[in-house]
């Protein structure tokens, strides 16, 4: 499965400036592992010491929060667009 991940500005310094990264992954775990391999410095920013996804990081697939799609159980489809977005405040 080839998917595209949009990297938010603060993390681009860890992806050699790339704003969009392509990965092959079947689910969220595989996506993180693929990102870890491509960009080893990125890992501690996305996962905590226990390997869990950071609490304040939100993952969107084609503009839908991945938690509504089943979270870790969601199976990526070819061409999925993934967004990594930090939580922001109320309004």
């Amino acid at each position, binding site marked *: 499965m080839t998917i595209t991940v949009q990297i*938010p*500005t*603060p*993390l681009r310094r860890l992806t050699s400036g790339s704003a969009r990264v392509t990965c092959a992954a079947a689910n969220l775990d595989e996506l993180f592992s693929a990102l870890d391999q491509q960009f080893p410095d990125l890992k*501690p*920013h*996305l996962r*905590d010491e226990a390997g869990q996804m*950071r*609490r*304040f*990081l*939100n993952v*969107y697939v084609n*503009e839908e*929060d991945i*938690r*509504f799609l089943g979270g870790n159980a969601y199976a990526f489809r070819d061409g999925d667009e993934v*967004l990594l*977005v*930090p*939580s*922001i*405040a*109320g*309004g």
Partner: protein
Amino acid sequence: MPQYELRCRECGKSWGNQPRSICDDCFSPLEVSYDYDALRSQVTREQIAQGPPSMWRYSGLLPLPENFQPSLPTGFTPLFRAPRLAEQLGAKNLYIKNDAVCLPTLSFKDRVVAVALAQAREFGFEVVSCSSTGNLANSVAAQAARNGFRSWIFIPADLEPAKIIGTQVFGAKLVRISGSYDQVNRLCSQIADEHQWGFVNVNLRPYYAEGSKTVGFEIAEQLGWRLPDNVVVPMAGGSLITKIKKAFDELITLGLVDAKPVRFFGAQATGCSPISTAVKAGNAEIDPQKPATIARSLAIGNPADGHYAIKTIKANGGWAEDISDPEIVESIQLLAETEGIFTETAGGVTVGCARKLYRQDRILPDETTVLCITGNGLKTTDVLTGKYEAEEPIPPKIAEFDKYLERILDIDVPEAVEA
């Protein structure tokens, strides 16, 4: 030397003062931290009492640039006893903190925007912006006009008409997004990434959120420099409830009030209740929801401060409740009929949840309890449509009025005596 700076709430890394809300290292939110040892000698009850009758009397406890000159008397809204509402709820010691009359746009958001724009000027932004469920939109637009900023406001397309007009009238550029607030919010975090704008609830968020503390400072001062037993607070993103707690904790740290384990009660609409659902289930984390409620100002399904709101509620044995849309409307009417306050849907949520909490004996009648009313009913009159019959007009004649009275009261009106 400024006596405040941004620090990561989780890893503690210091980020100085800059337009930034996220720690690059761990993606956690930044929080303004203060040098309380320095503040202890500067901020006293007497010094505060000499300040203006606005939130600026607490300037020493806010992240404001040096030589900041406020342009509006925001905050210091009334706190008063609510005996008639108390009787209805089975309470004896009930207070209302009434931000339905906060200036300039009749919601507590005026407080946070005032602080955010102070920093927007300091950082050199010419455009200020926000994603909003309505009240924030109104406040950013108005205060931008007042302070000479241009403003870009992003809202979900289905907001109440009064909140849309109440934004456009200030000359703001209003962008309606066909989606929920959470989607607008996500878009804005991407826009903030690309444009050099001061987004009050994105890159200015740590400063912005500090404005909410003034609700807590005022409650304590207006109660005669003591803390209440309980506070009931409506929750959308979950920030306000945590900031009222921060305010109380700071007053204790600075020796301005006696320490007390205040209990915090969060209020939500059942149709958007990610925080109250987590509290009731004993979870420390939020499961996001797709909002479906008339309380649009609280319709945030993925509350950024949900985790901290849960912590605040659990700290001293508080609780969270939620009520249905019909209960929200009924509670708006109850507050209006008992205390003469016309609040918006969020205020209905607070009153209705408080009623539940008294019934559950989670709040006891004699305890000093403050309900936070955060917005004005004139902005959400649409939810009362159909609640009151449109009366048929009658001719301007006393005989017609007597007939009218007979008709509606079903009583005989005494004949008028000829003079």
